């Protein structure tokens, strides 16, 4: 269980980006993190992981989340990565093996095999040697998912993985994520497209600077909650 | 990738090996000319006057470059690798212990006995004296005074004799002739300056290079900046120079051949005192073929123009 106590994030200019989140989240599910742009979804994830300075306490299975670093994977928005970086698909996926390698250890045959298996699962085997800059948005996102698979982490955080991604890639990815959940992993996904929420997520967390609602999708993802979260009335999507 | 690795490794090992080799010092072969490497033009000229055909001098800082900041090029280093004698001014002209000449000497592993500082017998003068009466910052421009020139010539003569004893008499004869000429010029300096009335003995140029000259011949020296390596013509410096001129009323202001004359032009405008033309020489000789292209003509040139300027004979 992931337990979040009094989590809040205040920016250096004094603005409170996220206030007083208290949540107890069971493992083994896929959670959608939903909310308007700029209202704290990414901050929520970064606050949990300690990537931005945050107040409050976050524990997983009773221990501080920081101690679970090797069991945690975070795939940030792919627009933040440098696509000109000299790295092939295979090398990028291999990066997922690094956290488990010892200090001077280089990735060897075992690691390469694991990487290739993951690349096969996302359907990019024939692209293995291409530079990431030559891939489409969907293909690159699949590479990042393959990297996450190789990491074999218990907690997986994804930030808007379906932005700029083709339908085919999206389908492949969501299938794999469901497989990972079936294996016992816990996935948190910041997601922007409201139309797919019921299909993708068992549970949702609605955020607009604080948690507006959370819980199983059927119960929490209601018109009423959405209006509160998105601050709009009469959006045809909700009817 | 494997190919890259082995090429690099081979190069690295090869050069590490080579870089540990040591060098022998050049030996003088009887019929060869003595190979002398000299830091700048004035020393090169004096060397040739005394050594004449028996020596081959390689000049480092060419006329037109600043001997404080010269960077040796490959030809310089090739010559230095087999030079018999290394001659430099000292008094920090070439940058002192961490300067370019010192590094050149160290990197060819020259024998200390073959490295000659021609100003070693000269009493240094200082650009600054601080509150504790500590003398700081040596003035390198000793050679402007012919008295110093005489010492330098003697030191150079001595150095040539020490590495080429076979030609001792030749060098001694040349030295004697040269000293006679230098002494004659020095006498002219002494008589000329002594004849200038007290109230006209105020001399100002851009850089404080004339300190030794002024001290030797009873002049009071003004300046804008004390040495080239500091700022040339800051507002404070110009103000102080203007104050010097207003207080002491020299008839002219002097400028140097290789310094920026604009600060002095400002002083001239503010005080109404004209600049004397032509420029005088400080830390370089004139170009070959021009006047002042030997140390002797340089001294004579400076005397003529400084004297004329001081007595107001424009």
């Amino acid at each position, binding site marked *: 269980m992931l337990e979040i106590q009094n989590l809040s994030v205040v920016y250096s200019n004094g603005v409170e980006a996220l206030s007083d989140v208290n949540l107890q989240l069971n493992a083994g599910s896929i959670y959608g993190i939903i909310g308007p742009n700029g209202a704290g979804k990414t901050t929520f994830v970064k606050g949990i992981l300690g990537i931005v300075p945050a107040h409050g306490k976050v524990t997983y299975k009773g221990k501080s989340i920081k101690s679970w670093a090797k069991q945690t994977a975070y795939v940030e928005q792919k627009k933040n990565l440098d696509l000109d970086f000299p790295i092939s698909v295979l090398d990028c996926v291999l990066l997922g093996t690094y956290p488990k390698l010892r200090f001077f250890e280089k990735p060897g045959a075992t690691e390469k095999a694991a990487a290739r298996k993951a690349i096969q699962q996302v359907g990019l085997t024939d692209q293995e040697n291409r530079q990431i800059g030559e891939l489409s948005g969907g293909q690159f996102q699949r590479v990042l998912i393959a990297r996450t698979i190789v990491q074999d982490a218990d907690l997986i955080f994804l930030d808007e993985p379906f932005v700029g991604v083709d339908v085919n890639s999206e389908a492949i990815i969501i299938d794999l994520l469901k497989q990972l959940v079936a294996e016992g992993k816990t996935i948190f996904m910041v997601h922007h497209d409201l139309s797919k929420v019921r299909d993708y997520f068992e549970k949702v967390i609605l955020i607009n600077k604080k948690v507006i609602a959370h819980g199983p999708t059927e119960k929490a993802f209601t018109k009423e909650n959405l209006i509160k979260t998105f601050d709009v009335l009469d959006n045809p999507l909700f009817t | 990738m494997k190919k890259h690795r082995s090429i690099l490794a081979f190069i690295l090992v090869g050069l590490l090996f080579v870089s540990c080799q040591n060098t022998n010092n050049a030996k003088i072969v009887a019929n060869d000319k003595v190979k002398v490497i000299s830091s700048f033009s004035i020393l090169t000229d004096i060397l040739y006057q005394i050594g004449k055909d028996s020596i081959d001098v390689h000049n480092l800082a060419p006329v037109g470059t600043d001997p404080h900041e010269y960077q040796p090029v490959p030809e310089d280093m090739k010559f230095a690798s087999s030079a018999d004698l290394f001659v430099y001014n000292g008094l920090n002209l070439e940058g002192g212990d961490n300067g370019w000449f010192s*590094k050149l000497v160290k990197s060819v592993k020259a024998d200390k006995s073959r490295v000659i500082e021609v100003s070693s017998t000269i009493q240094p003068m200082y650009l600054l004296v601080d509150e504790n009466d500590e003398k700081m910052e040596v003035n390198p421009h000793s050679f402007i005074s012919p008295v110093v020139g005489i010492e330098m010539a003697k030191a150079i003569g001595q150095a040539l004799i020490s590495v080429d004893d076979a030609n001792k008499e030749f060098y001694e004869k040349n030295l004697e002739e040269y000293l006679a000429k230098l002494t004659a010029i020095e006498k002219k300096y002494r008589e000329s300056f002594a004849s200038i009335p007290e109230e006209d003995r105020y001399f100002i140029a851009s850089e404080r290079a004339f300190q030794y000259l002024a001290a030797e011949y009873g002049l009071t020296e003004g300046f804008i900046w004390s040495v080239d390596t500091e700022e040339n013509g800051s507002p404070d410096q110009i103000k102080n120079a203007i104050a010097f001129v207003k207080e002491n009323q020299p008839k002219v202001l002097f400028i140097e051949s290789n310094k920026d004359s604009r600060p002095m032009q400002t002083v001239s405008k503010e005080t109404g005192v004209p600049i004397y033309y032509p420029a005088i020489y400080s830390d370089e000789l004139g170009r070959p073929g021009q006047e002042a292209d030997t140390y002797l003509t340089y001294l004579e040139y400076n005397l003529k123009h400084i004297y004329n300027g001081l007595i107001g004979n424009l």
Partner: protein
Amino acid sequence: MGEALQTFISDLIEYPFLQHALSISLILGIACGMVGCFIVLRGLALMGDAISHAVLPGVAISYILNISYFFGAVAFGIMAALGISFLQHNSKIKSDSAIGIVFSAFLALGILLVTKIQSAINLNNILFGNVLTITPSDRILTIVVAGVVITAIFLFFKELQLSTFDPVMAQTSGLSVNLINYLLMLLLTLITVVSLQTVGVILVVSLLITPASTAFLLTKSLKSMLWVSALIGAFSAVIGLFFSVTYNLPSGVVIVLTATIIFLLVFFFHPKSGLLWQQVNKRRPKTA
């Protein structure tokens, strides 16, 4: 050209100063080429220049305390690098502004100290060297420091790679991105200071950026970028020295121009990515 080459080789055999110049500029070409890869990929190209100037107060203080310039220079170089990182990460100041602010401040402090000390020695001479006149002690220092830097890059390759490409993943998976940043800044400072004393400021900045940028255009993995950059750095040193000796020109600047010409050749003529080829390919219709 053949004759000039023969002369160069016989000069190499005859003159120790040339052997030393060659081996030192080779070693520095390799070390700077490698460090430069990370600097270029992180968009910190001007850090090398900044550190070259920021070391001035350190040199002045070393002089006051009468200790070797190396320690003072390295200490202040690191402080400058840390200062730049601090500004970047704790405000919205971007990296180029942070570099400019810190470097000019340190340089000004250095000039102030130098004026106060009224040093009889021109500190420029200490700071900015000439590859032809390297002293034996500087030579040993350079070899040792370059060796340490190259070794560190080999040892910490994984960490450097991950934190350069995806610092967020690095951070979340438990790697201390801050420590790796400090390590890189330390390596950069060390190699900059030792390069300054041996080959001068013009050469340092160029050797850090140009071979790495050329390699960036050519390679598909960070590992090969490191090798290619090192090779180009080394190659520029050899060719540069060859031309400088043949035409009696200052060595440092000729090495810089050589590295630049190599970059331009790749930039224009590399098949597929070179500018000229891009123009050609635009006109030619692609076959299916």
